[in-house]
């Protein structure tokens, strides 16, 4: 009797094994580690990341000594082994060790601190938070402050008003409760209004999904569209490695399209088309196209013509457009403005029924740089209700994103307005940060362009410079001898000589045979001259050592 019951109920739970029989071949295929050893020369060039990704990994050879345990390197998910995330990879690990050692061993190094230019993490380098945002967050976190008269002496009037308004949007004013899985409705209303004001086209609060930063939103979309290696995503090269890592983790294929360094990292639709067709000829169904604007790591702001072309291309080819627009507030040149892809789609007359478009935004970037809050959202348009339901379900498994990140996402989309108590001080803080970033970008760019064999496009936006370094043959050979990618070799040398942490271009992908690194523009202004001096001196001695 019991046996029977177990068998019956089992059915409900393991039943998908049988229901999905017809998918088995496919899922088993994806199980086989496709190019487990990253140096397989016969890997299909189009889909093998190894060609443009870092080749410093030696994980295939290593294994845990304790192999009798159930979970070891030999038995974990091969997709986990395969994915790479250079922004926090090997060089950062070395930097952290150096930093530890510096504490006790100061005299052993030619520098007295590690300067992290590897990651867009402005507040870790001394950028201050926007006071108004933090006032509102503090009041929401500890709402009984709102009942104290002293609070009025410590907080701006509009922060108190805003905190009340937000608390009233939260059921029971409970900031400690799980919210709706898409995020608190009132906050989504505010965000939608902000998008509408930005684009001049309507935005629907039901299209907004608030997330713990933009990264989980990207993962969610990848998980939704990728079933196997036969599903591809068009990604710019160079790209932010979140995309390559996420595609690897979800078992899909990255289909590269190259940004053209010579035209300021612009793109050619003919190249996109060629890559798409090449992928299709290999049996890959390309599902989506990723575009990062302003660009990471490349810092360009796409030309309006380019944006229009991309929209039309996605529409014609039936691709989901995944628009990473997290740097929308970071623009440094007067001749460029930010325009969202949704704005272009709508102005071209493409509505909800014509194309699928997802726009990602984050509280971590812009002038606010609130990385530690993990706030962000995606605006999801042009999906049928049954697909939308699946996205909602995925969001609901994680219950909701953190509430203070949600509140902050609403604040960055509706900052103080003229006439508000905080407006003037807010504008001073905001413009101060943005103009300083522009200045730092310019100084670093000029310094880089002065180095022998280095060329660097201007940073029109975002937070990065991505200089190209022509490495002498001798340096390339030295790197090969150390089994390191040549640009990683350069970056390690740079770190050891100067304490400056940058990320090798191989972590982002680059045209084969070219070498780059990514450097943020975020160290505080007073540190920039010293960085320039150290970088210049290092580069000179590096070239002196390896010049052909």
């Amino acid at each position, binding site marked *: 009797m019991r046996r029977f019951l177990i068998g019956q109920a089992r059915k409900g739970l393991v039943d*998908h094994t049988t229901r999905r029989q017809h998918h088995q071949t496919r*899922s088993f295929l994806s199980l086989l580690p496709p190019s487990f050893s990253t140096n397989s020369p016969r890997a299909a060039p189009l889909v093998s990341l190894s060609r443009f990704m870092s080749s410093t990994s030696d994980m295939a050879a290593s294994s845990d000594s304790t192999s009798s345990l159930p979970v070891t*390197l030999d038995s974990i998910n091969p997709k986990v082994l395969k994915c790479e995330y250079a922004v926090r990879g090997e060089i950062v690990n070395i930097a952290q060790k150096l930093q530890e050692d510096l504490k006790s061993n100061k005299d052993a190094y030619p520098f007295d601190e590690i300067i992290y230019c590897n990651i867009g993490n402005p507040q*870790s380098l001394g950028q201050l938070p926007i006071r108004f945002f*933090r006032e509102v967050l503090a009041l929401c976190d500890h709402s009984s402050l709102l009942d104290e008269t002293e609070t009025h002496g410590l907080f701006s009037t509009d922060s108190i008003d805003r905190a009340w308004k937000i608390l009233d949007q939260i059921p029971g004013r409970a*900031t400690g409760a799980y919210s709706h899985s898409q995020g608190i409705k009132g906050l989504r209303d505010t965000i939608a209004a902000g998008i509408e004001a930005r684009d001049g086209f309507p935005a629907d609060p039901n299209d907004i999904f608030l997330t713990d930063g933009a990264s989980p939103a990207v993962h969610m979309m990848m998980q939704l569209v990728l079933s196997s290696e036969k599903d591809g995503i068009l990604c710019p090269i160079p790209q932010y490695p979140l995309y390559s890592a996420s595609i690897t983790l979800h078992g899909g294929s990255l289909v590269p399209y190259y940004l053209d360094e010579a035209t300021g990292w612009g793109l050619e639709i003919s190249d996109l088309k060629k890559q798409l067709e090449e992928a299709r000829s290999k049996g890959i169904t390309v599902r989506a196209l990723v575009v990062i604007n302003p660009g990471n790591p490349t810092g360009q702001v796409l030309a309006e013509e380019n944006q229009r072309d991309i929209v039309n291309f996605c529409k014609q080819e039936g691709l989901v457009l995944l628009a990473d627009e997290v740097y929308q507030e970071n623009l440094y040149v007067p001749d460029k403005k930010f325009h969202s892809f949704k704005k272009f789609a709508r102005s071209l007359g493409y509505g909800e029924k014509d194309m699928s478009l997802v726009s990602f935004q984050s509280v971590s970037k812009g002038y606010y740089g609130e990385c*530690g809050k993990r706030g962000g959202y995606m605006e999801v348009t042009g999906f049928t209700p049954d697909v939308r339901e699946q996205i909602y379900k995925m969001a609901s498994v994680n219950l909701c994103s953190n509430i203070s990140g949600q509140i902050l996402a609403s604040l960055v989309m509706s900052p103080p307005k003229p006439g508000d108590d905080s407006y003037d001080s807010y504008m001073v803080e905001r413009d101060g940060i943005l103009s300083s970033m522009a200045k730092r970008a310019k100084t670093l760019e000029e310094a880089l362009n002065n180095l022998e064999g280095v060329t660097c496009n201007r940073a029109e936006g975002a937070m990065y410079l991505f200089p190209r370094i022509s490495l002498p043959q001798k340096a390339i050979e030295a790197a090969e001898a150390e089994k390191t990618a040549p640009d990683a070799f350069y970056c390690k040398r740079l770190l050891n000589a100067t304490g400056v942490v940058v990320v090798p271009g191989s972590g982002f992908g680059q045209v084969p045979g070219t070498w780059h690194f990514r450097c943020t523009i975020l160290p505080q202004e007073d540190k920039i001259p010293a960085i320039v001096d150290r970088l210049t001196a290092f580069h000179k001695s590096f070239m002196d050592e390896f010049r052909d």
Partner: protein
Amino acid sequence: MSLKALDYDSLNENVKNCQYAVRGELYLRASELQKEGKKIIFTNVGNPHALGQKPLTFPRQVVALCQAPFLLDDPNVGMIFPADAIARAKHYLSLTSGGLGAYSDSRGLPGVRKEVAEFIERRDGYPSDPELIFLTDGASKGVMQILNCVIRGQKDGILVPVPQYPLYSATISLLGGTLVPYYLEESENWGLDVNNLRQSVAQARSQGITVRAMVIINPGNPTGQCLSEANLREILRFCCNERLVLLGDEVYQQNIYQDERPFISSKKVLMDMGAPISKEVQLISFHTVSKGYWGECGQRGGYFEMTNIPPKTVEEIYKVASIALSPNVSAQIFMGLMVSPPKPGDISYDQFVRESKGILESLRRRARMMTDGFNSCKNVVCNFTEGAMYSFPQIKLPPKAIQAAKQAGKVPDVFYCLKLLEATGISTVPGSGFGQKEGVFHLRTTILPAEEEMPEIMDSFKKFNDEFMSQYGVGYSRM
């Protein structure tokens, strides 16, 4: 003429197969009714603050100060914040590099992980290594990270208790693995029989499944039982023999409502067992700020601690964590505060104790009121909620009700729960969302509605149940 970008058929099958009942049909219907102006009592999610539980004052003060560090420079700050909150805010800010606005180490702030390790050490009496503790955006994220590492494909199985918290079934589906159920014995107060486990593993293996890990939820969700030390020993021995990683969901460790079986961690039991087993069983335990008397669900704070996971594997888990950059920093500070609350002599100590004891004692009374209430209803039996936040009564549905459900195209317990919702506004989760034996029906409610509302809620439940049972005729019942 343009191609269709994305239609339902082309979506990842794993996504489509995933089910998450806690926010499923019942919840959506309840939200609709709420919009129409009906009063809804949300007992579907363990979300205490949503039902009126007030946050503990001290941690909120500390985090508010960390949010607005400029207040610390204001001479008037002492007028609205106690000195120990100010000191603690300074302490946590000193553990960050860049305050709440900077990404931390992807594993969480080293200083907070050290406080977590010290807490575990005090709790268990065994050392804990901060390097093996990762902070996460809630325990769910941690579970997903670990299962992602373990599951390679459909042939990898994870032993999960049934009834279970659907996070496990949903995540296993999303990752394309196979859930291997083991049944908790309702008549044995939801106890766990190791013979049963063995049978489940054997059956899975005969189907070509490699069983890789076992999940336990202690105290149980949705079942509310506390595992005994003897039971935990058996489980650990079983994992050792069968070479399974044990995933210990211990998020309800503060929520204990009886004195016979206090919470005991899997780690402590494992260490008590000594070598060689203490070195052979791989264990990952999960904790959160969302439960306990904290109930800070909206913060999304949690951690996991790894035992006997080899360093190279830990590195891989670190790598995957680094792709998400870092868990949110304010929740990390909540976690720090949870594992090192005010001490005797601190200014805020008395208030903190008063608040936390008040919440726990009330939960204990509510657990009693709820289970007694259910057991006084016709055709309803309910084990006592020994811990956690839920009651999981069995509803003996009459054949006529099952018939009516079928006609309505609903699973019988979904049918019952929908009727309950429409009649009383009580939003529950049907047992089928958690798994249950064939032909047996349950529902899950939290014990979280405010204590003063509890008698009224149980009365309206009873009234509904009486009417339901007479409408569908109480006759022959199978159990």
